[in-house]
């Protein structure tokens, strides 16, 4: 068949041109030349008539004929035949033809050529000429072609002309000019920097079309540059959206009676970018978002499009509970819709929000189950994505099973790679339903994922096997299971197994088959040897197999077999393979060497390694003598980097502070890792070791497993949870979960049992796992969360709502009392604390606010496992107060149920009687920075004088949730290794005169942040602390030259960052 195509290709030019060279024929079929072309092509290929088509091209042709030919060439290109001979003619046509032919010329150019095609340079002049033309259509065409395809280097030539067009009287020209500039911005952002004002002008253009076009630019700018540069435009965007939504645009812009839907979507997208993590900006949009949600109620496709965009925006910006509620309802509309497209989008939206609000997934669990069995693989795929996000330790096996089922049916390579990665991630994250399950899942992954999956999946798996978990017994069992399952796999037909899987199998058998009692190494060698007989096996895999064999040939029997196999490869052309084979032979002959480099069995773990690499001392001193730069330990290098203000986010390997390295390095390294380091050090004296490093590439592999098991445990979910602020009311949350479960269940009683079982197994553990509510992402945002709320009671008069200005100071002034209260009262207040709280560390009692007759004070008491906020309500008037009701609400702090039950209470206050109220905010914060705001509102009824309300918010500073963590140095060392998230920074110590800077700094940190000083070793100090929730964070400090280098590590992603921020403050305030 291909030769037919080839013939067609060679004949095409002649064919195209021949029609014109025959005037008679041209007359005849001038009416439908294209038609005859189509026909000729058909005849050509079907009847295989080659020769007659190969007529020579005739002489010059008129532009009109050229145009015809060009359309034909376009058609040919469309069919996939290259018509490169016509490219130059296309450019010529654009240059010379009349308007009409020009258009075809330009069109052909933009279809044929690509951005960096040389011929494009020839077009520049034409474009220049047309841009200056008085004919509007010519200008339009030039602008169109510029925005479609233009050489980057020639932008300066046309830029001034295009800029001029921004002030053109015709809106269509202005609009196209804006888009042409957008294109320039895309391909060469630097060259259009000076015209950013003009973009603003375009945004304010009186024609909505031009404004719409300019939004493309702003969307891009905000996405690429810092959004903060464009915050000032938020107002404008909101106003525009308001007008659009309000129907202020001409009716022309309506589509299915929705005003300018595409414009609305664009604006919503921009607002989402602007309002992300910015409360102040977000507040500006709440109103218009609400309006959009409300308006988008007509049941048409396009309104759903707007609605979806709106949902995305609402969930991206700083949350507002009312909007979130409405949005949740809308998501329900999507998910429950019978229209498949809407359902798809609903699933997508759920995936997007489910981490913030797992409740939503629970509400729709039956729909989700149905989607799991949907006939459309795209829907299924999206559902799996959703399930992936809600996976926890309890439902992992069901979800993984579903994913694997899908994978077995899926043919698409991209889906396979993506999903296999996810399954592997889940399996490693929650490997403990049981070891058998883990091994089986990994086997399924390897056989399904085959050779397309990411290479770190097998690497991580092998690393996990090699390093093991906590208990030796468990490790042994896991390894044994792996060996067992692989042996049984090898017994079956291995031809279908992917190469990667075979590599894993051979490594595991080589390394751990000794664990299986009664298994002769010779047996294993024999089975591995069988693998090599298969021709389909790659050289790389052969290397792995040979390496495994060299580990196995301890007994003479095995050695004999292995040598027989290896002998074949000693003369192999592939060097790696040959090396492996020769090594095997050599090691077989030299038993001493063998036992040294490949010690038997478990002995390998006790392998002593000269970690200081003292045998290299001579080499180093030689190098230094020759003027080489001295070696700097990694953390020193990193410090220098951070001094240069270069942010390095990657943890540098697993290196330790020097003082700790000696005690704990050697026992945790796997043999392969050690061999790797020795081969890295440039000493390749031991060939087998080098081969070992060839087997398992550990460098750059993300460290997921440590002695304590999986390290960034639940980190993904938490991170995601923390990303978006949520406003779930924590106490009611669980209740709501169970309620929804109940209601769902009651409605589906008649549905079959299976589905329900599936649902309960899928959604198990969802509610409880996410019960703690997480709020803020970054410590810097703390100051944003100043108190802001509208009193809940409509007709109350707000006496005062003071704002908390500084939140993180610990004991900073919270609010200035505005009315004078007898100070005597204040000293009286602490004595009214309940007995359980007396004697605990507490902050000063501060008056938060006061009205005519009521005063509100509070203090914080640091209990061991909670932060107690003691709120004092005192009567400061002369008369008695009949009734006081007090409403305490907290959106972000978890208020224990006891408190929530008496959140609205009535009290009788007699004259001068103080009432105090203790709210125990057990700070179940998962993160230090989860700054919460408790709102306390009391209003009084005073002799029918009406209601007045006191209103105040109290925000416990983040540092309140820190508690010392008593540790020994050894424990510290162990923990340090297992924590994966670290942050380092140098802080300037201001007081140089101090003798012991370290001591002073540590003491300051200890006092301000409640840290525990574990040990001080020379110029280094180590400290530990934990959050109220029990999450640890370790600090390592050392001083040098007036700087304090702090290095924090924690299992929680953002904790080090946040704590660093507080350390910084503490040091500065000192």
């Amino acid at each position: 068949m291909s030769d037919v195509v080839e013939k067609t290709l060679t004949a095409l030019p002649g064919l195209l041109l021949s029609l014109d060279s025959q005037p008679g024929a041209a007359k005849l079929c001038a009416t439908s030349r294209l038609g005859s072309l189509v026909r000729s092509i058909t005849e050509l290929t079907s009847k295989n008539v080659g020769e007659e088509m190969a007529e020579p091209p005739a002489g010059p042709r008129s532009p009109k004929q050229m145009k015809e030919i060009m359309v034909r060439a376009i058609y040919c290109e469309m069919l996939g035949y290259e018509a490169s001979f016509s490219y130059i003619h296309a450019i010529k046509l654009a240059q010379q033809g009349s308007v009409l032919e020009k258009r075809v010329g330009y069109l052909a150019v933009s279809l044929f050529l690509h951005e960096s095609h040389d011929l494009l340079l020839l077009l520049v002049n034409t474009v220049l000429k047309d841009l200056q033309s008085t004919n509007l259509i010519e200008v339009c065409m030039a602008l169109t072609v510029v925005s479609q395809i233009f050489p980057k280097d020639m932008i300066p030539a046309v830029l001034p002309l295009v800029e001029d067009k921004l002030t053109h009287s015709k809106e269509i020209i202005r609009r196209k000019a804006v888009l042409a500039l957008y294109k320039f911005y895309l391909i060469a952002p630097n060259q259009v920097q000076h015209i950013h004002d003009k973009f603003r002008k375009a945004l304010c253009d009186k024609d909505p079309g031009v404004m719409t076009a300019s939004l493309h630019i702003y969307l891009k700018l905000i996405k690429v540059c810092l959004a903060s540069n464009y915050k000032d435009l938020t107002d404008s965007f909101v106003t525009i959206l308001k007008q659009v939504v309000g129907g202020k645009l001409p009716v022309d812009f309506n589509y299915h009676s929705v005003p300018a839907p595409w414009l609305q979507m664009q604006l919503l997208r921009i607002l989402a970018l602007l309002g992300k993590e910015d409360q102040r900006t977000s507040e500006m949009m709440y109103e218009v978002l609400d309006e959009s949600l409300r308006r988008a109620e007509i049941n048409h496709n396009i309104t759903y499009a707007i609605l979806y965009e709106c949902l995305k925006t609402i969930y991206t910006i700083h949350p507002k509970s009312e909007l979130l509620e409405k949005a949740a309802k809308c998501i329900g509309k999507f998910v429950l819709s019978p229209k498949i497209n809407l359902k798809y989008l609903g699933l997508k939206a759920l995936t997007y929000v489910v981490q913030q609000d797992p409740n939503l997934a629970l509400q729709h669990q039956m729909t989700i189950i149905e989607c799991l069995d949907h006939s459309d693989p795209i829907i299924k795929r999206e559902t799996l994505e959703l399930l992936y996000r809600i996976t926890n330790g309890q439902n992992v096996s069901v979800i993984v099973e579903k994913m694997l089922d899908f994978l077995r049916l899926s043919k698409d390579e991209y889906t396979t790679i993506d999903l296999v990665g996810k399954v592997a991630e889940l399996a490693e994250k929650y490997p403990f339903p049981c070891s058998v399950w883990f091994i089986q899942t990994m086997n399924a992954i390897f056989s399904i994922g085959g050779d397309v999956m990411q290479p770190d999946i097998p690497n991580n798996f092998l690393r996990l096997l090699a390093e093991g978990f906590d208990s030796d017994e468990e490790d042994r069992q896991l390894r044994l299971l792996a060996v067992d399952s692989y042996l049984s796999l090898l017994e079956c037909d291995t031809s279908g197994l992917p190469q990667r899987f075979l590599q894993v199998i051979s490594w595991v058998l080589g390394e751990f088959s000794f664990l299986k009692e009664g298994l002769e190494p010779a047996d294993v060698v024999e089975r591995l040897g069988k693998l090599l007989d298969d021709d389909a096996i790659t050289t790389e895999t052969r290397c792995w197999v040979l390496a495994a064999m060299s580990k196995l040939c301890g007994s003479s029997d095995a050695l004999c077999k292995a040598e027989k196999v290896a002998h074949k490869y000693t003369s192999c052309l592939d060097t790696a393979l040959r090396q492996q084979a020769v090594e095997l032979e050599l090691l077989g002959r030299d038993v001493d060497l063998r036992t040294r480099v490949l010690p038997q069995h478990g002995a390998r773990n006790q392998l002593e390694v000269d970690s200081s690499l003292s045998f290299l001392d001579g080499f180093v001193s030689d190098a230094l003598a020759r003027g080489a730069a001295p070696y700097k330990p990694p953390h020193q290098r990193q410090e220098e980097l951070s001094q240069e203000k270069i942010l390095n986010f990657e943890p540098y390997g697993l290196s330790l502070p020097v003082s700790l390295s000696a005690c704990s390095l050697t026992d945790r390294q796997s043999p392969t890792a050690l061999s790797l380091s020795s081969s890295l050090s440039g000493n390749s004296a031991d060939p087998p070791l080098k081969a070992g490093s060839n087997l398992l590439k550990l460098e750059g592999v993300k460290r997921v497993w440590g002695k304590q098991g999986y390290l960034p445990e639940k980190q993904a979910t938490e991170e995601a949870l923390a990303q978006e602020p949520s406003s779930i009311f924590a106490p009611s949350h669980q209740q709501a979960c169970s309620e929804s479960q109940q209601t769902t269940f009651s409605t589906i009683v008649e549905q079959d049992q299976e589905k329900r079982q599936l649902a309960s197994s899928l959604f198990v553990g969802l509610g409880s796992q996410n019960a703690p509510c997480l709020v803020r992402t970054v410590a810097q945002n703390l100051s944003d969360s100043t108190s802001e709320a509208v009193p809940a009671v409509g007709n109350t008069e707000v006496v005062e709502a003071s704002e908390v200005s500084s939140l993180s100071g610990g004991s900073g002034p919270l609010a200035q009392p505005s009315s004078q209260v007898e100070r005597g009262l204040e000293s009286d207040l602490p004595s009214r604390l309940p007995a359980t709280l007396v004697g605990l560390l507490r902050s000063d009692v501060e008056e938060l606010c006061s009205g005519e007759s009521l005063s509100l004070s509070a203090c914080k008491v640091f209990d061991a496992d909670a932060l107690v906020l003691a709120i004092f309500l005192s009567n400061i008037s002369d008369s008695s107060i009949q009734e006081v009701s007090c409403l305490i609400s907290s959106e972000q702090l978890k208020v224990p149920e006891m408190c929530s039950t008496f959140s609205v209470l009535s009290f009788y206050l007699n004259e001068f009687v103080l009432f105090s109220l203790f709210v125990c905010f057990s700070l179940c914060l998962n993160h230090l920075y989860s700054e919460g705001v408790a709102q306390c509102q009391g209003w009084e009824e005073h002799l029918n004088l009406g209601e007045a309300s006191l209103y105040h918010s109290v925000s416990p500073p983040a540092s309140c949730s820190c508690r010392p963590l008593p540790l020994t140095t050894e424990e510290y060392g162990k923990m340090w290794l297992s924590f994966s998230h670290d942050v380092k920074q140098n802080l300037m110590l201001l007081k140089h005169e101090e003798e012991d800077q370290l001591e002073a700094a540590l003491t300051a940190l200890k006092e301000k942040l409640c840290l525990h000083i574990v040990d001080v070793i020379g110029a280094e100090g180590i400290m530990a602390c934990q959050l109220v929730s029990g999450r640890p964070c370790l600090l390592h400090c050392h001083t040098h030259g007036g700087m304090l280098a702090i290095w924090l590590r924690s299992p929680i992603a953002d904790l080090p960052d946040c704590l660093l921020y507080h350390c910084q403050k503490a040091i500065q305030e000192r």
Partner: protein
Amino acid sequence: MVAGSRPTSCRNYRCWIERLNHITESKTLKFALEKTTEDMEQQIIRETFHLVSKRDENVCNFLEGGLLIGGSDNKLIYRHYATLYFVFCVDSSESELGILDLIQVFVETLDKCFENVCELDLIFHVDKVHNILAEMVMGGMVLETNMNEIITQVDAQNKMEKSEAGIAGAPARAVSAVKNMNLPEIPRNINIGDISIKVPNLPSFK
């Protein structure tokens, strides 16, 4: 979003790929810059067609990226009209439903411009179709979504065509003649190598 457009035909369907991509971001673009050899382009088209054509009627109109179109960065959104597939490839932040309606606008515009458009119109007036598309989507960005406005623009250009008329105007008439006559010499089955085009019984839209 929309970068280039290239109509093509695959087997017995015509598959219009409007390749929408954010120039700097997508891999698609990467090879748009590296030039996509013709092969690559054809491969994308073929794969896309393969993906789209085997989908049932009652499934959603969105497809998530294959490797060729840049993985998860891009997605395909298509609409199916009789024997024609209109496929847009957009970057992942684009609104799915919005594009679906954009396709609807495109098709309705075609219908108005060609007065009851049929498949043959699209073949014989490749250039016109492209021009209409260029009015809607310019340099990858949605320029105009108002059908009347698009038609006005296209008409302005068509008027010029008529004024230049002469022979140039003839093909249009010829096509309509062909349409009406249903001439026998119009092959029912066109075979080009392994690509065969079946011309169906001139289905019209709607």
